[in-house]
């Protein structure tokens, strides 16, 4: 077959055996046609036959030409020795070859690696143009080591080739090692027509490539001559530009380059996607099968990521309860239990659908110790403080009543994490061995806050600690926190204000005054201090009025009137109401009438004055029968039927401002509802809110609902606030609407950076940490994900609530299944309602199933709070 093939390739014998010059010319054309096709061997054979028959100088020239092409072909196939031997042979046999094959001699020299021999003739000033071109062409096509050319001893140091090669070598190092400036790419030493011009284009192409300037890169690649050395990089660079390696055109070094520069990302990406997909199925066999290929691909493309990948896979496997040994085998060993692992594990627990705060805190403690050992941060550093605060925050998610039980159960059953360290390197085990499992400080928010504030005393940390301590039944805990705060940050007046308030509440007015004076010394212009001064004087005046010590109250009222802040906004009306109360206690009807008139004048009408004076009198301990007589007769809300809501709203806002609870008379409610329904825009948002909150305090949900409806109609920045009011005003059986309103309010608050509102929303959703969560609260908090809303969801809730201006009137009857339940279960199913409250069998079955699942989930939550993962689950 080989012979047959050879025969097929052998050129046909010459058509004529005569030495006819014409025939020679025509057959010479055949030889050149063969050369053009690259069939150099056949061309040589044909030329030899022609020369054998003709034996003329022309036929010899034809043979030498064919041999020249054959030698070049051998050189291109790196058969340098064969090319050199053939060259010698041709030179010996044909005298004309010595002259015509001089250029090939240079090429053979360059291929043999003798760069000096190649370039040395360039020193000759008499070098012919043809020979120079041949040498330069050889440099272009053969020289791969630019640094060798830069150091070539055969040329003087200042020879343009050496200078240019040196500049190119430095530029190549620069562009492949980091970003470069445009100036570095100018390379004025390199001529556009010189032998190093392709190198210049290559350097520029690489620079553009790293800058992600792909068009410019491609333009440079197109300028590289195809037969130059630089062109060898063009396929690899084009592969990197299109990020494809799978067409099979690249060879070893090119593939290695593509992998090193871009990484074999595609293969790794596919392997990781497969593993992600396998995890999504939760099928053990699929996951185990996908782990090993992913690790292998990562080891090839991104060896530095292998350990990270193993740690992530380990954590995912833990969560799916996969068998340890099989996963470890697929991973090629256990993952390293360093700080990164523990952080990942802790995050995995705290972001799970059933967060287990004590376990998460214990994992964070493991992280903390490893992070300190690994130098992530110092043990006494700010990062440690931030971690303590974060752990305290996790524990705050547990209702207080359950926290003590969770702490106790955890301490009794926690076996430590020694199992994790069995296969670990000594450096990791050393960190573990220093640990004692008896220190459970991380289960106690108070200790965590104390540690955080000691390491990084700042206002926010103390505020969070104080908020926590204030919820303790013992007020002394909060006072201790405030004292710590004051010691750590003596220039902050907030702890002093808290201590003042605390002292005031327990009747230690002198002490409270002392704290206030300290705060005033620190920052008398601080609005909080100014407000506290006002509030303290008001509290003292009310206290003295409660004790009927009007002479002392008069002193405080005089002091109040001297305060500039007491004269702001509607506050003079409040002072006048206090004076009215003073007159009532004294029985001075005339004076009382005067003060009432003053209140009425400031607040714009008698209705607001009646509400204000009545509420202040009640705050001072007077019975309504005692002061009713001193209110003007014949004046009532009926006289101001069209502005009653405005008056009540204004008075309630004043009450909120002065920290005195104002109560709306019951018989005003009908008129208020009517006015809010028909003229909702007459009140300011602040007044509407105060009115709504005053209504809520007396559990007048319908009135609060009407205030929220009027507020929502106004729109603007207060929408979030009125959504929260709406949530509180809704009847209990509207728990889904309530949850949606809270979530929407929180989302709007977050976007407007109103963290007070967000905090209130969170607290409302939790049902308040001071009381035990009931069934409705549980329903509202069961799905934590629902607390986050998209813009569209918020818009939908807002639209629905704005349209729902009427208080929900329907209250479905409680349903009782055939089994006894602790809680009442309410329908919120429109179809069921339409069916005249008759639940179908399917409804009941579905409800029972839901209830069973809910109970099981709650049981798991309870159980989870006092349990830790089984050792068999651990990696």
């Amino acid at each position: 077959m080989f012979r047959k093939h050879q025969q097929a390739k052998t050129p046909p014998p010459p058509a004529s055996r005569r030495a006819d010059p014409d025939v020679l010319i025509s057959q010479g054309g055949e030889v050149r046609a063969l050369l053009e096709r690259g069939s150099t061997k056949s061309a040589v054979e044909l030329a030899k036959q022609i020369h054998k028959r003709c034996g003329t100088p022309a036929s010899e020239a034809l043979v030498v030409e064919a041999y020249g092409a054959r030698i070049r072909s051998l050189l291109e196939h790196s058969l340098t020795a064969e090319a050199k031997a053939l060259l010698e042979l041709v030179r010996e046999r044909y005298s004309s070859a010595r002259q015509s094959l001089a250029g090939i001699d240079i090429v053979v020299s360059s291929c043999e690696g003798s760069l000096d021999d190649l370039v040395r003739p360039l020193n000759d000033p008499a070098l012919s143009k043809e020979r120079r071109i041949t040498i330069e062409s050889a440099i272009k096509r053969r020289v791969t080591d630019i640094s060798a050319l830069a150091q070539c001893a055969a040329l003087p140091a200042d020879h343009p080739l050496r200078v240019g090669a040196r500049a190119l070598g430095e530029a190549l190092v620069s562009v492949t090692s980091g970003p470069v400036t445009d100036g570095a790419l100018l390379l004025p030493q390199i001529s556009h027509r010189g032998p190093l011009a392709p190198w210049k284009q290559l350097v520029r192409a690489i620079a553009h490539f790293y800058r992600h300037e792909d068009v410019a890169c491609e333009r440079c690649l197109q300028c590289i001559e195809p037969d130059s050395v630089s062109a060898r990089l063009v396929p690899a660079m084009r592969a990197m530009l299109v990020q494809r390696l799978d067409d099979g055109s690249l060879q070893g070094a090119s593939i290695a380059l593509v992998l090193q520069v871009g990484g074999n990302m595609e293969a790794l990406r596919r392997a990781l996607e497969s593993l992600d997909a396998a995890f999504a199925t939760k099928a053990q066999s699929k996951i185990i099968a996908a782990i090993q290929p992913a690790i292998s691909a990562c080891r090839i493309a991104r060896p530095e990521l292998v350990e990270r990948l193993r740690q992530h896979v380990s954590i995912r496997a833990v969560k799916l309860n996969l068998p340890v040994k099989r996963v470890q085998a697929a991973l090629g060993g256990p993952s390293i239990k360093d700080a990164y692992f523990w952080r990942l594990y802790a995050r995995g627990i705290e972001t799970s659908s059933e967060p287990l705060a004590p376990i998460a805190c214990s994992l964070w403690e493991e992280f903390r110790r490893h992070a300190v050992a690994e130098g992530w941060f110092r043990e006494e550093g700010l990062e440690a403080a931030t971690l303590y605060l974060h752990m305290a925050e996790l524990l705050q998610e547990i209702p207080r009543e359950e926290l003590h039980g969770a702490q106790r159960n955890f301490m009794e059953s926690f076996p430590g994490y020694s199992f994790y360290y069995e296969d670990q390197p000594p450096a990791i085990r050393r960190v573990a061995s220093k640990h004692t499992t008896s220190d459970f400080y991380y289960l106690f928010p108070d200790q965590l806050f104390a540690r955080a504030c000691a390491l990084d005393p700042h206002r926010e940390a103390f505020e969070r600690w104080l908020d926590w301590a204030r919820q303790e039944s013992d007020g002394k805990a909060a006072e201790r926190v405030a004292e710590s705060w004051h010691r750590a940050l003596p220039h902050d007046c907030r702890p002093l204000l808290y201590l003042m308030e605390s002292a005031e509440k327990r009747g230690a007015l002198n002490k409270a005054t002392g704290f206030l004076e300290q705060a005033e010394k620190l920052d008398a212009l601080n609005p909080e201090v100014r407000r506290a001064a006002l509030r303290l004087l008001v509290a003292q005046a009310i206290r003295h009025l409660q004790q009927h010590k009007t002479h002392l109250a008069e002193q405080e009222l005089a002091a109040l009137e001297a305060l500039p802040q007491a004269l702001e906004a509607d506050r003079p009306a409040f002072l006048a109401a206090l004076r009215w109360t003073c007159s009532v206690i004294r029985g001075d009807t005339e004076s009382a009438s005067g003060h009432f008139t003053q209140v009425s004048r400031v607040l714009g009408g008698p209705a607001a004055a009646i509400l204000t004076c009545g509420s202040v009198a009640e705050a001072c301990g007077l019975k309504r029968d005692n002061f009713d007589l001193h209110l003007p007769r014949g004046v009532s809300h009926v006289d101001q039927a069209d502005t009653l809501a405005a008056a009540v709203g204004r008075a309630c806002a004043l009450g909120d401002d002065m920290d005195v609870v104002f109560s709306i008379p019951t018989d005003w409610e009908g008129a208020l509802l009517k006015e809010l329904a028909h003229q909702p825009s007459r009140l300011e948002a602040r007044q509407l809110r105060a009115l709504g909150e005053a209504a809520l305090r007396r559990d007048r949900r319908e009135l609060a609902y009407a205030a929220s409806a009027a507020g929502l109609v106004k729109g603007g920045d207060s929408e979030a606030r009125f959504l929260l009011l709406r949530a509180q005003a809704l009847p209990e059986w509207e728990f889904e609407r309530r949850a949606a309103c809270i979530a929407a309010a929180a989302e709007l608050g977050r976007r407007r950076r109103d963290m007070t509102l967000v905090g209130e929303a969170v607290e409302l959703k939790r049902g308040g940490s001071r009381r035990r969560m009931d069934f409705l609260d549980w329903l509202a908090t069961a799905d934590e994900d629902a607390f986050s809303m998209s813009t569209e969801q918020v818009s939908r809730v807002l639209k629905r609530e704005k349209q729902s201006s009427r208080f929900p009137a329907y209250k479905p009857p409680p349903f009782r299944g055939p089994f006894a339940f602790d809680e009442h279960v309410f329908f919120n199913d429109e179809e069921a309602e339409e069916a005249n409250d008759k639940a179908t069998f399917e409804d009941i079955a579905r409800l029972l199933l839901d209830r069973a699942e809910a109970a099981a989930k709650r049981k798991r939550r309870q159980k989870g709070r006092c349990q830790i993962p089984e050792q068999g689950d651990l990696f």
Partner: protein
Amino acid sequence: MSRHRQGIIGAHEDPREILGVATNAGDEEIRAAYLRKVKENPPDRSAAAFERIRDAYEILRDPRRRALTMLLSADPEAPLVSLLPAQVSERRFTGPGPWLAVLKEK
């Protein structure tokens, strides 16, 4: 900050990795890394990369925010693909060696 901005940092991304600083890097080191990265990725040349770098620096310049981000940047539920560098067409500087190896390959 716009969610749809091209260069935004993902929740599970560590801004330290974006700036290329160690976990225990201090203020000076972070600032130096930021300036270096901005120089490498000026906004007129690579707007998306620049924004990512700026966002990362904004997070890291506040020590408390930096610390909290360090704690919360780990996301065990994130797709494993996210372990790969966020920039799709990452081009690593390798030095001249691998490039010259292609030229010398016979």
